[in-house]
């Protein structure tokens, strides 16, 4: 079983990285870009484990380690 985790900054939280990337895209001439947000994309390979169990575990991993829930939100796909 594989899991995909998308970690993004919560709305309103400053994203300095996104800001810098947007600026660079502009200087490259990509003026159609109105906003950029940079997050993380984590892929997990899980051993033999039931779907419901996996769901619970991955959520726990996000809360404990993978995401900083004070400023980030996460989405899990199994």
């Amino acid at each position: 079983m594989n899991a995909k985790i998308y970690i993004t900054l919560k709305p309103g939280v400053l994203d300095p990285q996104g800001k810098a990337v947007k600026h660079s895209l502009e200087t490259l001439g990509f003026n159609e870009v109105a906003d950029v947000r940079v997050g993380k994309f984590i892929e997990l390979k899980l051993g033999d484990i039931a779907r419901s169990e996996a769901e619970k575990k991955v959520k726990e991993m996000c809360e404990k380690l993978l995401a900083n829930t004070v400023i980030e939100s996460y989405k899990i796909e199994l």
Partner: protein
Amino acid sequence: MKFGIIVFPGSNCDRDCFHVPNNILKQETAYLWHKDKDLKGVDCVIIPGGFSYGDYLRCGAIAKQSPIMKSVVQFANGGGLVLGICNGFQVLTEAGLLPGVLMRNSSLTFICKHVQLKVENNETSFTKKYKKDEIISVPIAHNDGNYYCDEVTLKRLEAKKQIVFRYHGENPNGAMANIAGIINERGNVLGMMPHPERVSEDILGAHDGLKLFESVIACHCEER
């Protein structure tokens, strides 16, 4: 001889890199602004350490897009001397002037300390003043110094003596084959993670780095 120090937004070893050729070795030295294209007739370009563009996205990725880098690539292709230190090394790999990439340190933390290097190749324009296999002490200070390339590239680097510096003793960041610095095939573009400009004066306790700058000057004088 004239040195040029590139200033990207977020470069922060630019003043340190300026200090050594200018104040210690009394060479003409100029800052080169990232938005300019003019290299001001310098004989050696130094891309200093720091966090160009905050190291956002990937270290060196945004810096490589700047106007000055187009000129640097041309300059390098014409045989001009280019030295990339730390973030400068990262910029050089992103710009394709050197092979491979610098990934996150295996410890995932920033590391600042003196490390020992072995001079593997003392026949380059940057290392003539060192002895072959000389062990020198030069500090590192980086998040992403973990050199990585594919097997074919590594074989070629080894075969063509392009690995100029290797970590001696402890490998601080997980770099492949203990690589601390490499040069291009032509021998005019050197990238290294350690900071020679930080060990170029007695008051800082060591001057193992000064020979690198002196090598460059010596080579330049020979050529003339």
